[in-house]
């Protein structure tokens, strides 16, 4: 059964002519992980903010449907949003150091956060959750100031606080981008385990394909505010169809193969106002791409918003 259903979500920020997010649709089942990949300006953080009711004032959001755990989020009062955020949805953000007030001991901040969520009782349980996420001495950690702990430790505490009330959905926006690769691997492993243990659904947002490929069951690839490709992780990142997804995968340095040769980098280009958003950078561009918005083409478990890409893909496989 799906926990989250989003149809045709569009967001405009105040004073902006072009949408930050246009026509995004996706679904997430209980206990599954959805990866959202894209570069700066692709709209991936807007997805997180919209789902959490955290869009700045003046932003306009519309959709034909947004449902979370059976609640219709579209005509829900602010109070109800708040209640849902406290009970069903939790967030972990990118920079563990900036997430905490540097002048106060963590215990005070954690208690404040729990109290604000009306869950002061959860404090005792937090200690065991902290141990669960790999903090051996929770008392000592909570007695510290943020600068006394490493980024990895702080991110573990953020995760524990987010999960202490057992939300149904955790939205993690670049949760490991500020961390070292070994610490990153551990945090991802913790998220992976918790998901299984707690039947948690996870939305993981990242520009890093390796992060998404490690955790996600399904992937949404975003560019210029659109979802350009969607499907099971193995399909999308294993046999990508959209030229943007292909370009992204090809441009990452690998641990095997040739070194000191040019990487197949994608061309420059602004996000196009008309037609396909990726057209300015695309090597498969056709005349129509510049004029008409590509329609999603069903493909395997998801879709691809690119005709020429789909044709090329089919040709390569026949």
């Amino acid at each position: 059964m799906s926990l989250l259903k989003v149809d045709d979500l569009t967001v405009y920020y105040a004073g902006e002519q072009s949408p930050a997010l246009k026509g995004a649709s996706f679904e997430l089942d209980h206990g599954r992980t959805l990866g959202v990949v894209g570069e700066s300006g692709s709209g991936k953080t807007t997805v997180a903010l919209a789902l959490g009711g955290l869009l700045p004032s003046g932003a306009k959001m519309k959709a034909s449907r947004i449902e979370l755990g059976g609640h219709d989020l579209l005509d829900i009062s602010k109070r109800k949003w708040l209640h849902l955020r406290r009970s069903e949805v939790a967030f972990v953000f990118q920079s563990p150091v900036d997430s905490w007030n540097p002048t106060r001991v963590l215990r005070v901040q954690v208690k404040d956060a729990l109290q604000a969520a009306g869950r002061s009782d959860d404090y005792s349980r937090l200690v065991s959750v902290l141990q669960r996420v790999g903090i051996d001495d929770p008392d000592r950690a909570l007695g510290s100031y943020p600068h006394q702990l490493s980024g990895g430790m702080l991110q573990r505490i953020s995760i524990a606080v987010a999960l202490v009330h057992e939300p149904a959905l955790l939205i993690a926006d670049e949760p490991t981008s500020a961390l070292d690769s070994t610490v990153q691997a551990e945090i991802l492993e913790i998220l992976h385990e918790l998901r299984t243990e707690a039947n948690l659904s996870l939305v993981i947002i990242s520009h890093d394909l390796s992060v998404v490929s490690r955790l996600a069951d399904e992937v949404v690839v975003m560019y210029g505010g659109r979802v350009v490709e969607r499907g099971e992780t193995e399909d999308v990142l294993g046999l990508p169809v959209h030229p943007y997804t292909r370009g992204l995968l090809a441009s990452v340095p690998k641990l095997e193969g040739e070194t000191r040769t040019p990487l197949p980098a994608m061309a420059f280009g602004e996000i196009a106002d008309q037609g396909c958003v990726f057209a300015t950078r695309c090597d498969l561009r056709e005349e129509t791409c510049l004029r008409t918005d590509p329609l999603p083409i069903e493909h395997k478990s998801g879709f691809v918003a690119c005709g020429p890409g789909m044709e090329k893909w089919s040709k390569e496989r026949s």
Partner: protein
Amino acid sequence: MTQLLLETDAVSKTFGSGKNAVHAVREVSLSLAQGEVLGLVGESGSGKSTVANLLLGIETPDSGSISVEGRPVGNWLKEEPRVYREVIQAVFQYPIAALDSRKRVGWLIEEPLVVHGRGTKKQRVARVKDLMSAVQLDEELLDRFPYELSGGQAQRVNIARALALEPKILICDEPVSALDVSVQAQILNLLLELQTSHQMSMIFISHSLAVVRHLSNRIAVMYAGTIVEGGPGRDLVDSPSHPYTELLVQAAASSSSNREGLVSTISPEGLPRSGCRFVPRCPLATEVCSNGEPELVMNSQSRSIRCWHLDTT
């Protein structure tokens, strides 16, 4: 035989003193040949950026020596600091923060030429245009301020600034970590192209093994202030010898199939003060490891390793 351009001999740097002392760099010996790219890889706190700062003269070593072109850097910086800075230049991690926010792109690239008294105004303006085309920056951007640039464009400005004086050595400290994946590839390609065409020597620092591997001829892996393994880049990644290098390779392996059992738990609670610093995280650790710190030993294939269990790795 290729000429050594830069050499450090047992360089150490400690910050703070007594109980709070942080031994950021401990007896690091490196060498860099003409036209070579040396990759430095390690996690935050491993000392890689301190090594960069020591080479650039931003920090002074407590002990050990650094020489460039056979000349001791300590004296050089005292006698002719400007000449030294013409030889060695740097590009850092945060491209926009690295630029003076109140200056325009044209001036930012011209500035090193002015400071070092190169050419007439007319010649400098021409040189700025050449540099901009070398780093593939549109001339339209001449009058922009740093905040009007994308991260990738700003990093190109930083690279142009660094190249303005035609340095022999370029130090790149995490130059692509703050950039989007598609931009990373463009900047890496640019650095590779410039390094090859100028026969520049480069020290390339990153926490990402795949990025370091892509650009480097040789790689040195740092942990807790020392080099734990060094060797030819591809070879080192293909067959890591030190357990820490192995951990880095595992952590970087990205396929979804090996998501289970990635890394053993780390103990962030401080490093050992003696013996091998990697003991708390090491699968091979035995009693001998805590008793003394192993030496960096050269083995057969131009590979050096700091590990007591050299035979079993």
